[in-house]
């Protein structure tokens, strides 16, 4: 596919034809790709610890791309495809180059939300392409939430039968496999998020007695709150459900959510109140939340999966596993949160300054680009615990009609921040490269929106 990216758009294919007044200019005949490890990893899935380093030497007549693992080769191929350019006459050129490259951060993700709006498969796949062009390596699939449950579960088909927006707005097991494989071929991990105990309204449609019934004056109101942490059946369900998730999604991590749990419904429910008393939690419902979360962490651990959680889980003092990854998303004083999380010895992923759904007028890519993730008080060891970040595109106002232009090229700023060295910060230089990169994405079929006034030689249609 990289051959197509490099030569595909060129409508003047000077294939073997030399311009009339040709000097004997050096020609590049071949790019050799060498994977150094004994087991290149081509049949496996990328992991957090995978090597994405590569060494690229471009010289005539043969260029060599060497990488320890296939994942590095993919990154190097992307770079090579960006080095190739066309002059005004349509000649395809590349400069003699020597590049030694590797990512600064190992976890470079994009969050997509397919619950607030269903995203057709095609739009997810197009987005994976764009992610590869920007060296992103994690798709954080926030697949279900309050509004809809599009994930078609094998064990619990009623969840999507009753919880999806409609019967055709679902992801079948095949759809999910397609996404995972499409991502894998681009060196992108797929981390699914099944957010509980909050953000679960849609789960209650297809799973009776999962959510907490809310009460008013001693009577159930008919509405429901977060997942009920008090019933054994909840944990029976979760055990079975996460067994399925663990086998469907090959990545070593599953995101368990844990954000924005509204305690008011729990507080209104007499069984819950009784349970609080029995457990000695007093009136501290954060303890109940932690009780629930710890049980889920245990369940998921037993399936040999690592867990990612939103910061509240850490903030409310749940007992996490040592390798739990905490995702910091609250914008207010996120540097302090990073210090706290890493200070407590946990790995962190940063999203707080990169909520790309928060659109605003003008060149907001600059503020995303200017974030320095390690700008927080902490020791060197602590800073090593910040393994990367994620650009989040929450779906309240986003679906297939506007996803691509809203995400790209703004997310490209985040991509560079997470890959490149900390001293690559010059905005004027970044502007030049970003506008060029945007035109390149257009050529490759990604409807990235303009950065500023101007034009691309090959416009979108």
């Amino acid at each position, binding site marked *: 596919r990289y051959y197509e990216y490099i030569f595909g758009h060129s409508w003047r294919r000077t294939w073997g034809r030399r311009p009339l007044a040709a000097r004997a200019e050096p020609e590049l005949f071949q790019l050799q790709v060498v994977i150094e490890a004994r087991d290149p990893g081509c049949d496996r899935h990328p992991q957090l610890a995978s090597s994405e380093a590569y060494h690229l030497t471009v010289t005539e007549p043969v260029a060599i791309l060497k990488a320890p693992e296939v994942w590095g080769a993919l990154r190097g191929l992307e770079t090579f495809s960006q080095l190739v350019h066309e002059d005004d006459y349509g000649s395809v050129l590349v400069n003699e180059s020597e590049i030694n490259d590797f990512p600064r951060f190992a976890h470079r993700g994009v969050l997509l939300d397919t619950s607030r709006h269903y995203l057709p498969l095609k739009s997810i796949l197009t987005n994976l392409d764009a992610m590869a062009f920007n060296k992103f390596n994690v798709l954080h699939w926030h697949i279900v939430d309050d509004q809809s449950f599009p994930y078609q579960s094998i064990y619990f088909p009623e969840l999507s039968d009753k919880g999806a927006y409609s019967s055709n707005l679902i992801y079948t097991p095949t759809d999910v496999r397609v996404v995972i494989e499409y991502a894998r071929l681009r060196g992108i991990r797929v981390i699914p998020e099944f957010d509980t105990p909050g953000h679960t309204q849609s789960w209650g449609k297809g799973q009776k007695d999962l959510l907490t019934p809310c009460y008013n004056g001693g009577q159930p109101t008919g509405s429901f709150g977060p997942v009920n942490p008090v019933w054994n059946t909840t944990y029976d369900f979760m055990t079975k459900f996460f067994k399925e998730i663990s086998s469907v999604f090959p990545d070593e991590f599953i995101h368990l959510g844990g954000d924005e749990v509204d305690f008011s419904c729990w507080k209104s429910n007499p069984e819950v109140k009784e349970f609080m008393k029995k457990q000695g939690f007093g009136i501290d419902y954060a303890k109940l939340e932690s009780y629930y979360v710890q049980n889920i962490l245990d369940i998921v651990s037993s399936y040999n999966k690592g867990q990612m959680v939103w910061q509240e889980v850490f903030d409310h003092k749940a007992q996490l596993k040592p390798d739990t990854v905490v995702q910091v998303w609250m914008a207010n004083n996120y540097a302090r949160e990073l210090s706290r999380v890493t200070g407590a010895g946990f790995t962190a992923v940063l999203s707080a300054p990169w909520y790309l*759904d*928060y*659109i*605003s*007028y*003008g*060149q907001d890519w600059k503020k995303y680009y200017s974030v320095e993730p390690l700008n927080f008080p902490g020791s060197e060891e602590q800073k090593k615990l910040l393994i990367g970040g994620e650009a989040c595109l929450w779906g309240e*106002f986003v679906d297939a*009609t*506007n996803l*691509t*232009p*809203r995400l790209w090229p703004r997310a490209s700023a985040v991509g560079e921040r997470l890959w490149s060295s900390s001293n690559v910060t010059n905005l004027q230089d970044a502007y030049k490269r970003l506008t060029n990169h945007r035109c390149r994405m*257009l050529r490759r079929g990604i*409807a*990235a*929106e*303009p*950065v*500023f*006034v*101007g*034009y691309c*030689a090959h*416009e*979108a*249609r």
Partner: protein
Amino acid sequence: AENEPSWETPCTKLLVYVSTPGCDGFPSLDSNESYKLSVSKGSMLLSAETIWGALRGLETFSQLVGRDENGTYYINETEIVDFPRFPHRGLLLDTSRHYLPLKAILETLDVMAYNKFNVFHWHIVDDPSFPYESSTFPELSKQGAFNAMTHVYTASDVRSVIEYARLRGIRVIAEFDTPGHTLSWGPGAPGLLTPCYMGKAPSGVYGPINPIVNSTYQFVTRLFQEVSTVFPDFFLHLGGDEVDFTCWKSNPEIRAFMVEMGLGQDYKKLESFYIQRLLDIVSSLGKGYIVWQEVFDNDVKLRPDTIIHVWKENNLQYLNEMANVTRSGYRALLSAPWYLNRISYGQDWIEAYKVEPLMFEGSPEQKALVIGGEACMWGEYVDVTNLTPRLW
């Protein structure tokens, strides 16, 4: 049973009756867009004074038709008498900051029709690029377009837009904004723009159109002669906004002119000098004109039938401007609260919807001078990749 729908008589025909169609003409500010729609068992009638009203009624009719779970198309018994509150309901597109392919413009015209918009304000050229292919001055686009082969509107393109719009009852009002916003005109029209000075010598940078040389007015006359013929609407938008005086001030010839003409240090008077001559030229070509509010704010002498386009938004100040403009007897167009290019997070349609154009202090006669408004989609950050979802 009594409440069951009676499916026996399917309605198969919508009769459209138009008293004075004028199907071969162009819509205008005075066009009558009223219509009546009558749907009852066995008969559906759409009647309108003009074809333009019939188009609006057709749109309404198409929105009334529903489809049930069995796939049956149905329509409720209906009696509608409808007409627009404001006769000028426009949309501005900017094809200079980014070129918009013809298809994108035509698609926008379709959606405008679905929303009963009736004016396409084509802000066709500006500082960054000049995509309009002029037959009188071909160098303008040859030198001023982003790419003279691929990023231009040929005469045929322009005709397509005008006709596509006409078939939807949409007027096309072209804006050739001067004397500011004209950097892209410079390369193809040497001597048109003011050379800026750094001390005694030209800096190599150019500013607004040079108002003190006769060649400017010869050029403007010939260009607008062409534009007047190409665009059939009675109105042209002449711009006149955001003129930066620094370049004029730096130019010694202009400074000398100011002294000669007794304009003192008031460069607004120089701007007025240019605008007045421009308005006279355009008038003599038999066109009416719309100008941005600065032209009114800077006390330019205007024809009574000038339309002032209110765009500056600063804490609801635009309502004062609307009052001032109408109090002075001019017709007003409102855009200030409707700059749709200024995106923000959330359901911002609500703020746009809440705007009440007539919420200012003034007599009923004054308020009658507000002929409508325009949603503006300036192009700094917009091209075909994001135009449609940003606008609609």
